[in-house]
């Protein structure tokens, strides 16, 4: 069996195309998301500030905007150019402070102008919120008033986390799912078409040893995938990972096992390699979007959420995120591990029942 395991590893490395999909595809995603959302950048977008006033108030606003983390500020652009940039979606909004704004003269303008793109609601709400907040505070200062009410924010954990960290854990799940479901389903269907499975059954090798060698070599690939994603995320884009890496790996590999079971199940039903490819894509693509790789699924309509939260990838991602991002206990919500084990049992039983190395 060891020989078969080593041979499988060799073939994986030599079969460059499969390796490319298993490693490059999730890494590509990691890098793309890293450039957009990584490197600790918490800003939601860029705004152009055209400040035509030299007053204390105007300079105060200028300074507050420039120091803010949520918005990146560009200056020295005239209004016409800024409008062009806005049209081209290169900036999120324009903030124009009129001449003499904030000057202690009766004719001084009282409003500043914000030009926004209605499509970019995230930037718009941040810009208006930010400026309103600034003016309210200024009003309080001028009138020497203390606010009567305020909020105490309590975070569920005191760690800095951003969207990239969320996606990074999702990408681990995605990589495991794609390489295991497609890898097993397509490889097995291909082996069947090429009569390699049949050739194996002419030897005294026990079928379970053949399957075990295949499963173990795939898990090795999974370790490599997880390692690379975490390394690139952490060192390349300053991802925040708080949990125990060993625990993260163990739970990821449980996921890997689950997806391999799904792969064997597909291989049991697919008559050809093409069919296996089609069926595994039909399983993985919807799951990629519905199980919360890229966005939290609680944003989905309630009826859909009640269904998709039971998809195999969904509880796995919840556990991986609990471990990786919150350093939490993966069993804190036992439903998650129950769903995963449930899926493993179901797919394993179907695979054992239907998947055969021989033709009959």
């Amino acid at each position, binding site marked *: 069996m060891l020989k078969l395991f080593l041979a499988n590893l060799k073939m994986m490395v030599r*079969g460059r195309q499969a390796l490319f999909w298993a490693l490059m595809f999730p890494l590509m995603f990691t890098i793309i998301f890293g450039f957009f959302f990584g490197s600790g950048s918490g800003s939601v977008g860029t705004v152009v500030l055209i400040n035509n006033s030299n007053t204390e108030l105007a300079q105060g606003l200028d300074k507050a905007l420039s120091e803010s983390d949520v918005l990146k500020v560009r200056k020295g652009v005239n209004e016409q150019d800024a409008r062009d940039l806005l049209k081209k979606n290169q900036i999120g909004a324009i903030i124009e402070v009129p001449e003499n704004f904030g000057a202690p003269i009766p004719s001084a303008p009282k409003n500043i102008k914000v030009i926004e793109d209605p499509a970019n609601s995230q930037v718009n709400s941040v810009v208006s919120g930010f400026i309103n907040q600034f003016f309210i505070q200024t009003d309080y200062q001028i009138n020497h008033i203390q606010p009567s009410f305020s909020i105490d924010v309590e975070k569920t954990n005191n760690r800095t986390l951003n969207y990239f960290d969320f996606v990074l854990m999702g990408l681990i799940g995605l990589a495991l799912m794609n390489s295991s479901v497609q890898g097993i389903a397509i490889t097995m269907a291909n082996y069947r078409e090429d009569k390699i499975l049949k050739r194996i059954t002419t030897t005294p090798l026990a079928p379970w040893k053949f399957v075990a060698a295949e499963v173990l070599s795939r898990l090795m690939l999974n370790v490599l995938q997880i390692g690379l994603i975490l390394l690139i995320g952490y060192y390349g884009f300053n991802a925040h990972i708080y949990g125990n890496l060993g625990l993260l790996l163990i739970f990821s590999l449980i996921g890997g096992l689950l997806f391999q079971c799904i792969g064997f199940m597909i291989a049991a039903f697919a008559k050809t390699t093409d069919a296996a490819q089609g069926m595994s894509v039909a399983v993985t693509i919807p799951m990629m979007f519905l199980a919360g790789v890229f966005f939290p699924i609680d944003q989905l309509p309630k009826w859909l959420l009640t269904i998709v939260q039971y998809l195999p990838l969904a509880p796995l991602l919840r556990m991986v995120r609990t471990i990786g991002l919150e350093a939490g206990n993966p069993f804190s919500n036992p439903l998650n591990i129950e769903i995963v084990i449930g899926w493993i049992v179901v797919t394993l039983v179907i695979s054992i029942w239907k998947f055969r190395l021989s033709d009959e």
Partner: protein
Amino acid sequence: MEKVIDVSNLVKKYGNFTAVNGISFEVEKGEVFGLLGENGAGKTTTLEMIEGLRKPSSGEISVLGFDINSHLREIKERIGVQLQSSAYYHFLTLKEILDLFSGFYKKHSDPKELLKMVHLESKANNFVDKMSGGQQQRFSIIASLINDPEIVFLDEPTTGLDPLARRQTWDIISEIKKQGKTIILTTHYMEEAEILCDRVAIMEKGKIVAMDKTHQLIEHTKHPYRVEFILEKDKPEIISQLQKSCRLDECDIKKLPGKEAHYEMKLKTQTDLNEAVGLLQKENPESLTVGRATLEDVFIELTGKAIAQEEAEEENA
């Protein structure tokens, strides 16, 4: 002689279709036994049941004295199987594949020696799909020898090969026989069976319609003599004269497709043969070949009969 394979009343059904219909035969140690038949006659199904790859619907199989149902593992340790058009791993070299497969058995042959036997030692580090069809087939045969088996199963070992590659494969098969191994092969090339097999069984629609030593099958055919000739131009009077000379029902004369006056005549007795040749020589034919019937003639006679019988049965029903 020691019996190494014993098959009795073997049946394989797929729903309503009967692929193998109650066949029985024995194979003796050290012989080359051929299963002949058209595509779909049931050769491969029979072979795969003996190899333990398919479960018989009924009947018994014993290999090397072991019952196939209770001792399949022991049997697999001691047989070598070459599947019809089987591919091997794409990303392993020949040597790696042999090493891998040797790990599946308790007993192994030396991969280097095996590669040398089929002149592939220089290709030891190549991938299978980078080789020609003949080379792949040769490799596939030696891969079935990796456990130094007592019985070797070869399923259509020369199908799709060019004449030269086919002859090279024949040499390998006789080399395996020389090592004292028993070989059971399927083929639809009669010439190949005639040269390689000690005994053959001819299968037709799941049944064995004839089984004997190859040369005896040929000798026992209805028309063991054969004359082939080409005349300068077609002369119907010569043909009727020939037919008269050998008493119409006793000989079979027919025009071959292709050339204008190319005939084949099958005869029952030496006397008929002499008479026919005497007559023909007077006509000064462009070509005249006298010979023995071949296994192909036996095959056509037998399977043609089987088909005619079946058609008659269908009509009666």
